[in-house]
């Protein structure tokens, strides 16, 4: 327990020493919410305000970026630099190291979400969710699905550079085609069906529902899909994840 807390704290501390990481994690979604707000800010989208659509959506995107970079790419770098192997030479259990990273990722997520919600309220009149519990549940489920997914991608990458490249590819595809940024309605049918192959689509759909409705009516399928993505990713990642190179 002591090592768990210390590892998580140490990661958070190191995170805040990386200026670039901090910039991208916090400022990037804020800029995007502002930018899209300039474009769509005055519109009602499917009966919901701009902020009600886009703030939950960017919380979902943050879950993904944290999964890909804060967790996945970082752990690949740690593997490459022998940091994980150094931990392996101590009594620390592998699950303690991974668990600490998850906690650290969740903490970064909470901070990002807080910043975005504040921005949504100040600039775009975001109304608070009808059920806070529903939003928390949807967020945790997204974490459960995407963090192991990020770990899985990282474990497939040979080195940090390929992990970063893979992450960028996955992130950009999902940003464009999962409805996180551009409304799916503007796409032709075949691109819209592509969305159903992207985990982020389910995250976004569920978070938007949770924020703007009471209950998940119409979105229960998202719940099951995300559960499945989490379970499958954990099963696969526990086979492919390596603590040291070769």
């Amino acid at each position, binding site marked *: 327990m002591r090592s768990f807390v210390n590892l998580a704290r140490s990661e958070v501390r190191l995170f805040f020493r990386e200026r670039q990481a901090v910039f991208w994690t916090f400022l990037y979604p804020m800029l995007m919410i502002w930018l899209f707000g300039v474009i769509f800010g005055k519109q009602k989208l499917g009966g919901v305000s701009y902020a009600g659509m886009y703030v939950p959506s960017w919380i979902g995107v943050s879950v993904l970026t944290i999964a890909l970079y804060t967790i996945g790419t970082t752990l690949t770098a740690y593997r490459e630099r022998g940091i994980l192997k150094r931990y*392996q030479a101590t009594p620390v259990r592998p699950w303690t190291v991974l668990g600490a990273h998850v906690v650290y990722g969740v903490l970064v997520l909470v901070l990002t979400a807080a910043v975005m919600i504040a921005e949504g309220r100040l600039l775009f009149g975001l109304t608070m969710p009808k059920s806070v519990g529903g939003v928390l549940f949807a967020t945790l489920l997204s974490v459960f699905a995407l963090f192991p997914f990020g770990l899985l991608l990282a474990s497939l990458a040979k080195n940090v550079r390929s992990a970063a490249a893979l992450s960028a590819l996955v992130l950009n595809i999902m940003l464009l085609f999962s409805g996180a940024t551009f409304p799916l309605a503007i796409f032709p049918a075949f691109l819209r069906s592509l969305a159903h192959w992207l985990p982020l689509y389910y995250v976004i759909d569920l978070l938007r529902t949770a924020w703007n409705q009471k209950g998940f009516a119409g979105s229960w399928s998202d719940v099951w899909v995300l559960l499945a993505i989490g379970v499958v990713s954990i099963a696969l990642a526990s086979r492919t994840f390596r603590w040291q190179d070769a």
Partner: protein
Amino acid sequence: MTAAIVVKDLRKRYKDREAVRGVSFEVAQGEIFGIVGPNGAGKTTTLEMMEGLRRRDGGSVQVLGMDPAREPYRVRERIGVQFQMTAIQEKMRVDEALALFASFYRRRGDVAKLIAMLGLQPYLGQSFKNLSGGWQQRVSLALAAVHDPEIIFLDEPSTGLDPAARRELWEMIRGLREQGKTIVLTTHYMEEAEQLCDRVAMFREGEVALLDQPKRLVARMAGWDYIDFVSDDASLADIERLPCVQRAVETDGCIRVHGDDVQQVALAVLVLADSRGWRIRNLRFAAGTLDDLFVLLAGGEASGEARREGSAAKGEGSVAMGEGSGVV
């Protein structure tokens, strides 16, 4: 002696090659045990099988009475490890790293004393990447010792250090031993093995070629005096034909001649040179060192065979390589 580590017939095979081929040795409690050998000899592989970090393919390992493959966590609680490549996060500060690693262990060491001993006090607030190689090495030594382990494994601790830093490192390793710790280290500096280790296992191609106290290994070489000199026109074959000469070798224009009575050898060589009109420069007398032994071992079978033949032909017994070394 009470054995801290017992290794028997240890084996490891990677896809296409056998990296460790039946290695056996014991390390006594409180001993500084050295594993020397050229790159690729299997030192790191052997070390990491003792640490329970690599699976072995055969043989047995007992560390403090436990099998590291069976009870890795119990073993790691009581050993400290320093890898060939120091690895902590670049922006982690020294004091943070010490606190973090200390929290991994149930056992608590006297960290303040360790900091004093390694002279880390002025560097506690520095981040790892801002330290020089020597100080990074000290930090990683501190991390290996932070929980007051009974055994410390050091993989090439002095590689890349300048001579002064290397000597300081030796002092610190001796200091750790004085606290009763057992030290197992690998190196390819013979001087280090000679200065620091109580016993040395010389690895060659995944096997223990020799195992003894350094001074006894040097003593094996003591009968092995030689002269060497530089000459462009001397004939190796003619020199080897001299009755007092056991063997002559040439490397980069420097000729080295072995014989039991080097004074006789020198005289005979000079007389021969005079009669043939060879020019001889930089003639000097030298005694066999651990370095010579290492070069001989690293050279592999070829030079070992040649030596044995040489001494057999002359009927003189001196150093018999690869024999009678065995496991203590």
